[in-house]
């Protein structure tokens, strides 16, 4: 019987995975109960850069309409208008990002042109962003907790499972202070559902759905795309020289040195 190169690679990957699982099992760490990735479509490890149009980009998927409940709708519009007006005057308002505060889930998944690195093991998918070196961990095949059982934070608690070749990630426990998509407010009831899949050998898609029964009239869905960066080495990003400061009017300004 002959074996194709791809089958040999998958076979080797399974052997390697099995060795890792055995090694983990020897240390007493749980995680051996999850099966290894079973198909090439389930291997999303690697470095990925945002893909917004151009060759190989999937057709743009328009985001769903955003409808907020009162009083959040008026507050959101007022805040956006104030930001727009400040920007027109050349005095943009400070944001968490301008103060080097982490973006958290889900905004961290798309920061300018910075790559994300995905590390996949049988029991966990780890996502590390280059911008601000943020880390989120998706625990595979574990039950999700109730929202009020998760301490609110920037990354919350993520669990995932494979649905065919799509990794479905459920995240709860995102603190209201954490920056939202399009500056949307959210409550501690926010639930983020992501459907992550390869749409080509080197193109990854992340369909993000935000559901917040306190703030949103109906869930908001938008889609991110990424292009594979072969052999890319992630660049260190420690925000230790932030020259952007916030003045007394809440405007972000650049510090100019005297010499």
């Amino acid at each position, binding site marked *: 019987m002959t074996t194709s190169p791809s089958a040999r690679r998958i076979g080797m990957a399974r052997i390697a995975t099995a060795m890792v699982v055995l090694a983990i099992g020897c240390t007493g760490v749980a995680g051996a109960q999850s099966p290894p990735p079973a198909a090439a479509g389930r291997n999303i490890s690697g470095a990925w850069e*945002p893909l*917004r149009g151009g060759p190989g980009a999937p057709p743009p998927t328009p985001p769903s309409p955003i409808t907020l409940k009162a009083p959040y709708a008026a507050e959101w519009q007022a805040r956006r208008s104030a930001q727009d007006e*400040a*920007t*027109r005057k*050349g*005095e*943009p308002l400070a*944001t968490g*990002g*301008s103060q*080097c505060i982490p*973006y958290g889930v889900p*905004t961290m998944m*798309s*920061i*300018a*042109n*910075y*790559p994300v690195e995905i590390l996949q093991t049988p029991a966990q998918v780890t996502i590390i962003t*280059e*911008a*601000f070196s943020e880390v989120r961990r998706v625990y595979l095949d574990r039950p999700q907790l109730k929202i009020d059982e998760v301490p609110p934070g920037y990354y919350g608690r993520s669990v995932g499972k494979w649905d065919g070749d799509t990794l479905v990630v459920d995240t709860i426990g995102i603190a209201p202070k954490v*920056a939202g998509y*399009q500056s949307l407010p959210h409550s501690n009831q926010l639930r983020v559902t992501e459907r992550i899949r390869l749409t080509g050998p080197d193109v990854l898609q992340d369909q993000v759905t935000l559901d917040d029964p306190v703030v949103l009239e109906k869930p908001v869905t938008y889609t991110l795309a990424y292009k594979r960066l072969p052999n890319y080495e992630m*660049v*260190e*990003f*420690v*925000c*230790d*020289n*932030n*020259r*952007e400061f916030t003045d007394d009017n809440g405007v*972000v*300004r*650049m*510090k*100019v*040195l*005297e*010499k």
Partner: protein
Amino acid sequence: MRSPCMYSSRRLLIAAAVLLLGTPLAAHHSFAMFDSVNKATITGTVTRFDWTNPHVFIELDVAGTNGEVKHWSVELGSPSILQRSGWKFSDVKPGQKVTAIVNPLRDGRPGGMLYRLTLADGSMRGNGGPPPADPAAR
């Protein structure tokens, strides 16, 4: 040594600046503090080069026509953005003479966002992309 001179340009800001200005997605900070139309050309001596996050900075002493030295702070993209466009952390060193074309701060202080840098050996660097062409004069 040339004194700061102003250009105008209808060209869009390049590379990272364009990416960050033109996208509704998150970025470290808005670039609205910089004049996206006018540019200043400054030639001077590097006093400090910070290859740091969230931005790289070049500090320059620039002599004016009256001989008075004015200090400028020039902001660039991040090391990641620059490295992917061919920059090296060792490209600029204190003591080097360089010429920077910048989009200056709109509030008038001596600072700006780099448009293009010319090193002493004549080589050029962009700010997250290939070195852009000369800005069109007004």
